[in-house]
C-alpha cells in the first residue's frame, strides 16, 4: 500500500498533480460529507443511544430491530425483491443491448423508447397504475371481458409482481445504455480475429463479450441495486404507509418508525442495511474483478 501510494508523491510534478487532484476532489468531498457521511455517522451514533436523552444503550437497539416482526417481514420482502429483480433486470437489459448492438439503423429510436419510462414522474406512473391495476381498473375489465374473474391487484400478493414489473419497466432503458457503452468498448478487431479462427456468435459472446463486460457488470449491478430502493416511491404513492404485506419494504418500516419517533430503531436498521449493501457491493466487486487497480 505504502509502495502503491508513494508513486503519487515521488517527484515534484507528481506531488503537485496529486495535491491538485485533492483540491478538485474537495468540493464534492465536502458535499458528500455534509449530506451523506456526517448524517451517516450521526445515524451510527444514534443507533447506540436513546432517541431523546441520547443515553448510550449499547446493542439494545439492534436487539430490538432483530426481534421486530415488521423489520423481519420488510427485510424478507426487500431481499426477495432484490434477488428477483436484479438478475432479471441484468439479463433482460443485456439481452436487449446485445440485440440492439447487432442491429444498426433503428438503434437510437429503440434506445429512446426504452428510456421513456425513466423520465415519467412517479406520480404519473401511480396514476397510470391505478387506471390499470385498480379493482375496477382496465386490466380487470379486459380479464372479465374474456370470461376471467378480476382481482384486487394492489391489495393481494400480486402487488409484489406489479412492483417487480414497475422496476424492470422503469430501469431497463438505463441499464441498456450502460451495457451498450460496455459493448462499444470492446475492440472489433478481437471479434474479427475470433471469426477468422472460426468462432460462432455464441462462442464469441461467451469468450469475448462476457469477459470484457465484467467491469460494466459491476457498475450496472451497483446502480441497479441503488435504483431498486427508489421503487419505494411508487409503492408508497400507490398503497400508502401500510400496503399489502407482500410489498411492505424496508423503507415502509423506516418511514413508519420515523412517524412514531422510533429514531433509534430506524438508525440501527439503517446501519444494518448499509453494512449489508456494502458487503454485497464488495462481493460483486471481487467477483467481477473490478477491485483490481488498473495499470497505467
Amino acid at each position: 500500500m505504502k509502495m502503491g501510494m508513494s508513486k503519487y508523491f515521488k517527484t515534484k510534478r507528481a506531488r503537485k498533480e496529486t495535491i491538485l487532484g485533492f483540491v478538485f476532489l474537495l468540493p464534492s468531498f465536502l458535499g458528500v460529507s455534509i449530506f451523506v457521511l456526517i448524517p451517516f455517522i450521526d445515524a451510527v451514533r444514534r443507533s447506540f443511544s436513546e432517541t431523546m436523552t441520547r443515553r448510550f444503550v449499547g446493542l439494545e437497539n439492534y436487539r430490538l430491530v432483530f426481534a421486530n416482526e415488521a423489520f423481519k417481514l420488510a427485510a424478507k420482502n426487500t431481499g426477495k425483491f432484490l434477488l428477483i429483480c436484479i438478475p432479471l433486470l441484468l439479463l433482460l437489459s443485456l439481452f436487449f443491448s446485445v440485440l440492439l448492438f447487432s442491429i444498426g439503423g433503428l438503434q437510437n429510436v429503440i434506445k429512446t423508447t426504452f428510456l421513456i419510462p425513466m423520465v415519467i414522474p412517479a406520480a404519473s406512473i401511480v396514476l397510470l397504475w391505478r387506471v390499470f391495476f385498480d379493482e375496477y381498473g382496465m386490466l380487470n375489465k379486459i380479464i372479465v371481458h374474456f370470461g376471467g374473474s378480476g382481482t384486487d391487484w394492489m391489495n393481494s400478493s400480486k402487488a409484489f409482481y406489479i412492483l417487480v414489473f414497475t422496476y424492470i419497466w422503469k430501469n431497463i432503458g438505463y441499464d441498456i445504455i450502460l451495457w451498450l457503452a460496455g459493448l462499444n468498448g470492446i475492440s472489433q478487431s478481437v471479434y474479427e480475429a475470433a471469426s477468422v479462427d472460426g468462432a460462432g456468435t455464441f462462442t464469441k459472446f461467451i469468450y469475448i463479450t462476457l469477459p470484457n463486460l465484467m467491469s460494466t457488470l459491476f457498475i450496472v449491478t451497483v446502480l441497479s441495486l441503488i435504483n431498486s430502493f427508489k421503487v419505494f416511491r411508487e409503492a408508497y404513492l400507490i398503497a400508502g404507509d401500510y400496503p399489502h404485506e407482500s410489498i411492505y419494504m424496508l423503507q415502509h418500516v423506516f418511514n413508519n418508525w420515523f412517524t412514531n419517533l422510533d429514531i433509534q430503531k430506524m438508525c440501527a436498521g439503517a446501519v444494518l442495511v448499509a453494512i449489508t449493501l456494502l458487503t454485497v457491493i464488495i462481493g460483486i466487486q471481487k467477483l467481477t474483478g473490478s477491485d483490481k487497480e488498473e495499470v497505467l
Partner: protein
Amino acid sequence: MRKKKMSDNKRTRLLVLFLCVVLISSLLIGCKSRGDKETSSVPMGRYMEQELELPEEYQESHIISILSNVDNELEVYLATATTMIALIYDGESWTEKTISWINNIDQNKYMIYKVILGKDNQYYLITVDYSSGEYQYMIYKEDGELAQKLEIPWLETKTEDYKGEMSYPNVEDIQVLEDGTLVILPSIYGESVNMFDPSTGELIQDYSLIAPVAVSNQDLIGYSTDQQKLLRMDKSGRETASYVYDAVLDNSLIQEVDGNIYSLNSAGVSVLQKDGSLWQTIVEGGLTTLSDQTMVFQELAVMEKEKAAYAVLAYDSQYNIKLYYYQFDENVASIPSTQMNVYSLYLNPTIRQAIIKYQSEHPDVLINYTYAIENGEASNANLSDTIRALNTELLAGNGADILVLDGLPRDSYVEKGVLEDISDRIKPLVDDETLNKNIMQNYLSDSSCYYVPLRFQVPLAYGNKQVVEAMPSLDAMIALLENKDVTGLFNNIGAENFANLFWALYSKELVTDEKTINEEILGKYLDMLQLLMEKLGEENIFNFGTSQLQVDNAIELDRGFSMYFGENNKSETFVEQLLSLSDSQVTLAGAREVGMYYDTFDNQYIESGLVGINKASKNKELAKEFLAYLLGDKVQSSTAFDGFPVNAKALDGVMNEVDTLQGMSIAIDTEIRQIEAPDEKQVKELYDKIKELDNPISYDCMLSSLVIDQVKDFLEDKVSKEEAVQNIMNVAKGYLAE
C-alpha cells in the same frame, strides 16, 4: 516572457484567494448571532381590549345598537322589557341619555332592532312590525320629541320571495348621506344596495354591490363581486374610486369617518387613510377576541378623538351579545414580550377560545396557535408527512411548547421522553376533586402524568332496551342476534360503519396488551357482523362509510357513532356521540315520549383535546400555567361543542343549565319534528351516567382502517371467515409489531 506569465499566474491566485476570503467572511457575518446587539428599547403602545360591562341596573337589558355620536362618544342603545334606553360611554363612565323620540314608538307592536346616526347628524332607526305576522320593515327619523316615519313606497310593496310567497322587502341595514338620502341594504348576501330620495321616498339608484357597505357624506362605498374591490359610487351611480379589500365578506364591517375607511374583521380593525392605498392595522385581531372565528360582528363604532377608540358589538358562539371597547394604552408593549407556541394536528375549538381569553387577561403574552390540517381533511400520506415534520422539530429540541396529542403518537412521545411530567400540576387538582377523578385517573400513574384530556365525549345507545344492554358485550350481541325473533335492531347505516363502530367498542378485547390481535375474539367479531348484516338485509352495504377523525372541528369517531336520524321509535336502536348537553335532546325526548331506553357502553368515553407539554420547551412554567388555565373554570365552563368539561365544577354547571336548552326541530324526510327541551329530572339521570364514565375508548384509526378493508372482503363473500381472520392477523401483525 516566462517571468511575465508567472507573475500573471501569481496575481490570478492572489485574486482567487482574496475572493475566497471575502466570500467566507460574508458567509460568517450572515451567520452571526444578533442577540447581543439587540437594543433594549421596546416599541410601546397598543390598543387594548376591554369587554364593556353595563351599569348594574341595566345588566338584564339587551344591547340593540352602538354608534359614535356627534361628540365622538360611544352611544349604546338597550332594550329593557318595556322601553328603550340610551347610555353614553366617555371612555371611563356611563351616563344615561333621554330618547323619548324612540319611546314614543309602540314597542309592543314594533320591534326596534337598529339605531344609526346619519351623515346628516340625524338619528334613524329600523323597526319591524311583527303584529300582523307579515314582518313589515319601517324606518323612523328623530323629529324632536317624536319619531317621524319615512314614507318609502318600496318598503310597502310586497314582492315574491325565494319561496314563491308574497312578502315585504327585508332591511338588513340603513345608512344616510349628508343630504338625507337613504341607503338600504336588503341582505348581506344579495348583490343589491338601494338609494332613496329623502323627500319622495322613491328609489333613485340600485347598485350592484354587496356588504360590507358604508357611506361618506355624498357617496356610497360597497363591495363589488365583479371587480373584487370596494367601490366608491356617487349618487348618479358613477364609480369614483376603488380600494383593494381582502377579508371574509359576510363577517366584515366598514365605516367611513372624515374620509378614512375603517374595516372590522377577524384580522382586527384596520384603516385606509384618505387618499391612501394601504390598509393599516390599528387593533391587531390576533391579540384580541376579534380573531375568534365564531364571532359574528354586528356593529363598529369609531370614536375619532384626540385618542381614538373603537367599539365592536358582536355575537359569540353561544349567541350572547358582547360589547368590546378598544383604547390605546401607551404603557403596554406593541408586541407581547413573552411568546408561547401551541401545536395540534386539527383545530381544537376549546384551545382556540382559551388562547383568546388568556391573551386578553395577559397582555404581555402572545400565544401562537398552529394547527397543521385545515378542516380535518388529510389523506393518510399527508397526515404521516405532517407528523414526521413535527418529529423532526422535536428531535432538534424545538417544537411547540404545548402539544395537542389528538392523532399524534402519544405513547411513543411518552416513552421517548418528549413530554414533560405534569403530575405536580394535575395531581393536586385531582386530589381536591377539581378535576373529574374517574376520567383523570386514566392519565395519572403513581409518579407521573404526561398528558390530560380537556374534554370528553359521551357515546351512548338508545332505543330498544334489549339491544342497548347487549351492545357493550360481544358475546351478548351474538346471543341476541342468534335469536330468530330479535327485534329493535339498528337502522342499516352500512356494513363499514357497523364494522367501525363495533371495532371501536370491542377494541380493548380485540387488541391485547401484547400488541397482538386475539384471534378468537376476532372470529366472534366477524360472526357478529355477519349475523347483524344478515338480519338487516343486504341493502346499503358499504354505501357511505368513511373513516373520519375530525368532523366540524370536533374530534369524533367514525360515522358508526352518529346514527342521527331523530326517529322517535322504541323498536329501533341508535348510537349517538354527545358533544354537549344540547346533543342529548333527541335521546331524552325519545326516552320521555315513547320510553326509549338509553345507556353508555360500559362507561366508555371518547377523549378530546389531549394536552401535553414539550420537555424541550423554554417556557415550561408559562406552559404549565396555561394548562392550568385550560383546565380551570373559565375555559371549561364555556361551550366549544367538542365535548363535556373534565373540570368537575364546570361539568356541574353545564348539567345545571337545563333552562338554556330550548328544544329543537329536526327534519325527517319531509316532516319537521319539534323536540321539547328535557326537564331537570331527565338531565339529572343523564348526568349520573356521565359522572360514572371512567373507561377511555382505545381506538386506533390506522389499525381500524387496515382491518375494515379485510372485513369488507369477508362481508362481501369474497373470502371465507378463516381467510378473513388470517388476512386481518397478517395485516395487523406488521402494523402492531412496528
